[in-house]
């Protein structure tokens, strides 16, 4: 099932892969703290767009890099993006209705 | 068929089909009593015809499941059945007990039957589907224990495939979930729970596992796809069944008397109960596309593909619709529920039984598959039955919707009988569709008497010509 493409890459590319994962991890941690900070400074209505966007962004980073859907057939990544977008939209509508 | 002892499945399958025919005949009687309330009164009042209809359903499905177990477990374990003689004796005990119970329903007033069978000692009678007198209920437990002993011993002495473990485990679950049937306290709330857990523990949980195991077995055998792949699918389907089913079964708890949060939990988790059925559809179609060989038994393949689709419609879609709390508030106990019951029981459990019978019976009769002519009869039967059952479900849904709007909503609701009068057209349609279903069943049964067989030789000849 798993293509051995990564294993056959030169070692230069490998440290690149590890570096990429680590950077994504640091970014996700940062965005998490940022969204909490943002959420603490205002009501849900004021901070909704920022907090929600940060969360969806985090989700897509996780899907692309940790789940590794960046490199597979577009359909799968699109499905995940669609899930994030749908959930985000439903939450946004509900919060704006409140 | 590789083992002689698998032959014991044959009487189970034959009896299951005979009881199925009986179920349909009583269904037609009960259906006609909707349009003419005095039909056959007082010989067979509606309460009796309905009870015989539903009890025959349970008995024939159990017969078919047991036959399937006696057929599959030795095949999967690669060894003879532990005791074919015990299996055969169990068959006769079950058949005679079942027949006597049905006769008692028909010949003795229910209250006299209750008095004569010790219901005062340990009250169990009177709840829908569980009307059986105490001796019959005890008999069912003993028959189930005999089956479980037999197949578990077979499993232990042979090869332990995941599919076999799932099937035997699910049959244990079936027996254990029957035990709340003996719990019928005077407190109606507690009694409702006991009833609920038997019927819905079966249909929303355990029987779905049996369904996946039977389908998995048929697909392994017919498509030649690697067992590993089939079993992996079975695991995720079962996980999803349990995730949705265990909490989803709570869609009625609030109405029994549980706290309010069950409205939410029950609705949400019922809404996801169709997912395992969608996964079953994807699974069967994928296995069919990945098939490594053409099986000459096309009829069995049709059943195996049709089962998850009709099950999704009946159990999944109709089930999810009626279990949403706001819908249930208006439609509870109306013919909308009956529509779901009919399509779900047929699509999920009757059809998978017919699928395993369709696969196994030719083998039990010493051939790879029936001849082309017989398969044509069988496939005609498939389509007529499926279409008729869809028509029944639609007609009953129509009646249910009328009930919700005329009798339960609005400022000037109609009385029960006035509403029933408004629904006559749907009851006529249902009865007509029922006659259609009987015709389909007869066509299906005819296929067993059409001579001729198709082997791989015939298929090869056909392909080369």
């Amino acid at each position, binding site marked *: 099932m798993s293509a051995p493409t990564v294993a056959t890459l030169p070692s230069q590319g490998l440290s690149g892969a590890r570096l990429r994962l680590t950077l994504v991890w640091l970014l996700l941690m940062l965005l998490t703290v940022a969204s909490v900070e943002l959420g603490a400074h205002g009501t849900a209505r004021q901070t909704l767009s920022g907090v929600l966007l940060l969360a969806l962004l985090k989700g897509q980073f996780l899907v692309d890099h940790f789940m590794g859907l960046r490199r597979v057939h577009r359909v799968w990544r699109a499905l995940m993006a669609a*899930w994030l977008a749908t959930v985000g939209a439903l939450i946004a509508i509900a919060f704006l209705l409140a | 068929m590789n083992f002689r002892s698998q032959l014991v499945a044959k009487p189970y399958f034959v009896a299951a089909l005979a009881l199925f025919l009986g179920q349909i005949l009583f269904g037609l009687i009960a259906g006609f009593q909707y349009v003419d309330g005095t039909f056959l009164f007082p010989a067979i009042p509606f309460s009796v015809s309905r009870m015989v209809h539903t009890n025959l359903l349970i008995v024939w499905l159990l017969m078919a499941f047991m036959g399937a177990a006696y057929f599959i477990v030795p095949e999967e374990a690669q060894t003879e059945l532990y005791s074919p003689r015990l299996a055969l004796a169990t068959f006769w005990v079950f058949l005679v007990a079942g027949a006597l119970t049905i006769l008692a329903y028909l010949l003795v007033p229910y209250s006299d039957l209750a008095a004569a069978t010790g219901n005062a000692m340990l009250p169990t009678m009177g709840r829908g589907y569980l009307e059986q007198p105490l001796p019959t209920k005890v008999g069912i437990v003993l028959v189930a224990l005999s089956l479980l002993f037999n197949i578990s011993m077979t499993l232990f002495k042979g090869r332990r495939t995941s599919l076999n473990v799932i099937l035997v485990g699910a049959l244990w679950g079936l027996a254990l979930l029957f035990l709340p049937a003996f719990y019928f306290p005077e407190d109606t709330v507690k009694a409702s729970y006991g009833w609920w857990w038997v019927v819905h523990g079966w249909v929303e949980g355990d029987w779905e596992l049996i369904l996946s195991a039977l389908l998995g077995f048929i697909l392994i055998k017919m498509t030649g796809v690697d067992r590993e792949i089939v079993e992996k*699918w079975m695991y*995720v389907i079962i996980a999803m069944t349990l995730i949705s089913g265990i909490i989803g079964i709570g869609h009625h708890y609030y109405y029994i008397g549980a706290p309010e949060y069950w409205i939410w939990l029950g609705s*949400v988790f019922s809404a*996801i109960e169709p997912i395992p059925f969608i996964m079953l559809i994807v699974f069967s179609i994928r296995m069919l596309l990945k098939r490594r060989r053409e099986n000459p038994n096309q009829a069995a393949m049709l059943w195996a593909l049709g089962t998850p689709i009709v099950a999704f419609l009946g159990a999944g879609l109709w089930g999810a619709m009626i279990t949403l709390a706001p819908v249930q508030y208006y439609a509870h106990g109306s013919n909308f529920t009956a529509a779901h019951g009919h399509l779900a029981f047929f699509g999920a459990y009757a059809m998978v039984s017919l699928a395993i019978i369709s696969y196994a019976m030719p083998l039990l009769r010493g051939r790879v598959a029936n001849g082309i002519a017989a398969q044509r009869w069988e496939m005609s039967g498939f389509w007529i039955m499926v279409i008729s059952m869809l028509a029944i479900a639609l007609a009953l849904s129509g009646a249910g919707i009328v009930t919700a709007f005329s009798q339960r909503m609005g400022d000037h609701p109609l009385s029960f009988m006035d509403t029933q009068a408004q629904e006559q057209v749907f009851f006529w349609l249902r009865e007509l569709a029922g006659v259609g279903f009987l015709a389909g069943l007869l066509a299906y049964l005819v296929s067993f008497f059409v001579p001729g067989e198709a082997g791989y030789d015939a298929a090869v000849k056909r392909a080369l010509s």
Partner: protein
Amino acid sequence: MRAQDREALPGDLAIWIFIFAELLVFGILFAVYAFARSAHVALFNQGQALLDRRLGLANTLVLITSSYAVARATEAIHRDRVQACGRWLLAALLLGSLFVGIKCHEFARDAQAGMNLSHDLFQMFYLSLTGFHFLHVVMGMAILAAVAAKTFAGGYRAHDCTGVETAGAWWHMVDLVWIILFILVYVLR
């Protein structure tokens, strides 16, 4: 990237069907929560005030780090570094236990504050959402443990690591769901 250059889906197709089914379930739960909130804003605000945001934040960071460890484990097995893969899986497992520990502490705290399913709508949603997610974490840890054991036993190689990828895909899904759950329950009020 051209279509033929793209890699196969990591892990087994069946697990991806399962993952999407689970995402659908959580998606429905999130939407139901959000719409229920819109009808009872004051009640939800009052309920959310009982929660300690710091515990939620800590758990989010723990789960993201754990997900990172699993991503590293997958990357390691692709290079045939069996021992490294096993160690990263163990790290993920430890972080998973940390999540479970913090969450249990939080549940105990909630119980002391008198929270229960039938008290009000918010508490019902909060407890069942996080409880349902909690069960997924426990199940994910069982899968990770099994895969880690097989890794140390030498059961996976670069060309044969579907098991690691499958377990990883499931664990990332558990993380993804928590990211949304966290802002919904703890942050937005």
